[in-house]
């Protein structure tokens, strides 16, 4: 693991590292924000999963999360969205599949299954790496994300009851098996057997979730084009959570779109939400 960049920010440090990933079998970059508190104490960790087309850079340069993270003493880790430089054929053909569109699954189909194991990377390898190299409290971690990353955050939390203290999402893809994005990605990564898709669908996972109580915060821009394009389908998730009594507060924010301007506007609320559980 080597440090790629370091900038003092909000009293702490915004750093980028690169390492050789065993799950993804390539070099991967990830961003880490270290709050001032990390100089003297172990801090909890918030994992941020970015959306389609993003790298480790978008979140740390556009979301404006550092001030709130510094205030609440949280380490924020923002990995990349897919393996890079694997030279898989067709990986750069689409912006919503392949490079920059890992969908946080462990692919089972060729030619993806060797490298495209973002689910294991995020839930297993990366935390181990972070815990081994930074002043973290390994018992306290939470997960959040945007769009595809929101989908990633939700499924990581639902598939690992008790692993994450809290979960939140911005404009997540709530029901991928029902939307074009999800269907395209799952077909490619998981094959045509829809039953295998359900293991990575937040709505389906919520319906059968049993574990420690979650407290989910979701913000959704009302003027989000992808919402109206039925890519996100939050109502499905809400309906299931209502029935299964999974506590969710879903906020439809009028006038906001799908961009980082939207994330920037509400990131403080999300960090505060996570801090409540991570600092408890």
């Amino acid at each position: 693991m080597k440090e790629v960049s370091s900038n003092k920010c909000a009293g702490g440090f915004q750093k980028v590292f690169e390492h050789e990933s065993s799950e993804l079998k390539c070099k991967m970059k990830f961003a880490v924000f270290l709050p001032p508190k990390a100089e003297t104490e172990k801090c909890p960790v918030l994992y941020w999963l970015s959306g389609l087309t993003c790298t480790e850079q978008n979140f740390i340069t556009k979301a404006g999360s550092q001030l709130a993270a510094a205030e609440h003493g949280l380490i924020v880790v923002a990995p990349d969205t897919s393996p890079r430089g694997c030279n898989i054929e067709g990986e750069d053909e689409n912006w919503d599949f392949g490079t920059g569109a890992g969908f946080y699954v462990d692919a089972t189909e060729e030619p993806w299954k060797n490298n495209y194991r973002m689910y294991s990377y995020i839930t297993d390898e990366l935390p181990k790496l972070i815990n081994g190299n930074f002043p973290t409290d390994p018992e306290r971690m939470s997960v959040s994300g945007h769009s595809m990353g929101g989908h990633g955050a939700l499924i990581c939390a639902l598939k690992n009851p008790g692993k994450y203290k809290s979960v939140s999402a911005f404009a997540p893809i709530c029901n991928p098996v029902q939307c074009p994005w999800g269907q395209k990605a799952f077909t490619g990564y998981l094959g045509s057997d829809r039953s295998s898709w359900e293991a990575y669908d937040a709505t389906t996972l919520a319906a059968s979730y049993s574990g420690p109580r979650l407290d989910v915060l979701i913000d959704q821009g009302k003027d989000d084009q992808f919402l109206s394009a039925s890519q996100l389908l939050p109502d499905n998730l809400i309906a299931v959570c209502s029935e299964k009594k999974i506590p969710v507060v879903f906020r439809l924010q009028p006038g906001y779109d799908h961009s980082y301007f939207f994330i920037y506007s509400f990131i403080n609320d999300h960090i505060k939400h996570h801090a409540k559980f991570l600092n408890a």
Partner: protein
Amino acid sequence: MTCDAFKDEKTVGKHTYYRDMRRSLDTSKFNKTLAKNGDSLNQPVALLMDLFEIRGGQLDVIEEEQEFSLMEHSGAQRVSVETNESLRFEACDSPSPAVTEDSPDDVFSDTENESDVIRNKLQEKVSEMENFAGHLEEIFLTVEENFGRREQHLEQHYNDVLQTLSQRCDDRAAALQEEKKSKLEALYKQLLDCGRALDASKELIESAQEVHRCHDNRLFLKMVMPMIKRIEDVAKDDMDLTLSTTLEFQTPRCDLSDVKTMMDSISVVPAPSAPVINPQAPNSASQTSLRVCWSLFSDDTVEYYELFYRPVLEDCPPADCPTPPVNKVKVKETHCTVSQLLPNAQYELWVTATNITGISPASEKALYMTVPCPPVLDQRGYMSCTDAALIRWESGNTNPVDSYTVEIQELTSDGTQSDFKESVVAVPSCQCLMQLQPGQSYVVSVRAVNIGGPSEKSEGLQVSTTGTYFSLLEESSHQCLCFSEDMFTISYGYEDPPISAMAFDDSGFTRCVAVLGDLLSVRGRHYWEVQVEDDTEYRVGVAYEDTDRNSYLGANNTSWCMRHILTPTRHKFEFLHNGWSPDLRITVNPVQIGVLLDYDRGTLSFYNVDLKQHLHTFHCDFRSFVHPCFGLDNPGELSVHNAIQMPTFT
């Protein structure tokens, strides 16, 4: 003379008589001289004083009696204050011991005993005499004092008499002068009249002579007849030669009866002068009694005092309203406690002193006031939070009081009251906001204060600073709301409210079936919880005091609330202010809602208490304090829980 002289019957009788006489007078003057003497020695000294006072200074009588009684007691106590003989006394003869033919030991011991007894008696006598001697100086002074008083009194009395006589004399002399003046005037007038008459006659005679001298016969004849006529007329006139006034002076009867009365009263003990009544001493009054003190600044003899009192009415009574009756108490002391009075009332008091001669003039009238009744704390309608409390009470008195004093006492953890007590004084109205420490329990009580002093303590109110406590304001509620007995649960029923429940005032909600809680008038954070059923359609939040009672909670810019609506398919939630709500979905319907008001941050937050889940936060920037508000949109029930410690999830 044996010691048995004391037991002589006559002596005893006299002794009793004088003792009784003494007791019937104001004994205070005598006490200092008498108290120190043994009772057996009182007679001579006492007699001196007694007789002097009783008999009004008829010294001859005294002497007689004195000698008489002294003769009775002679031998043992000859009182001759100016000689050294005073302390000489003859010992009682000891009866000779009966010498028997018994053993010499018996004789000796008997004799010893006898002499012991006698010796003891002698000792007693010596000490009594020493006591007596010691007090002679005081006796001297008292006699001088008494003499001085009497002399002064005498002088004054005679002066008065002389003045009166002198005045009479002057009056009489003036009257006499007047009389002389009028007599002389009358006589002078008479003299003038006579003079005039004389002159007229003289003139007439001269005229007649002239006529007579007239040589002209014709002229003479012409003038003579009228002249004769004139003379005849004059001659006919009777001369009044009597004196118009007498020469003697009148001697009117002189009424000197008043002077006689004055002379008569010289020898009488004067009636006392007016006593001086003291102003009300602090803390001497109770709710129904007053302790009144007065003093006599002259050395007059007083047999008893009479204290008069009556209540002072608030306003001037109208002509047809009778003035209150005057009550009267007779006392021997210079103080009195008057009871069975009204609380918080002003009384007018005055006192007279009476002795054998008569009653003194009344003292100045003093105004005293009884202490008020204790106030009554509102046991439900107070507000408290972690660092302050606002308590309210009823005065407890129909008439106004000057101020209130609030007493705050900490309650220790085992429920006892600590010694530490804080008082807030001069509270002008029936409420008080006080600073307290967080996480403590207190007992608060109030006293009403007027010029008479503070009332008894009111019944205490227990206040705890664990969390925020407030009551629901019944007068703000919509008429369809019913309250539980503990006044913390409201319900909106299916039945129409009874006609009697319809209030015709402006302070209640008219459309929104809602009620306000007490104003949260302390800065900082306040937290309370609301309990509902799964299907209750409610509005819960805060509102300004002036929020429109004809409007719905959250529909205006003076209220904020969380609203739950039940549709056939799902639960809907709104967070309303100014009629607008963000678009929110909440997947688990809260039945215990936590409300957190933070004045400093200007936020109002809602939580699902069971899940410790944050639901929504308003950012408000409050311009003034707010009331918690609760409403029911459809029949249902809602309970308010407060005085809760701030939970950690907030």
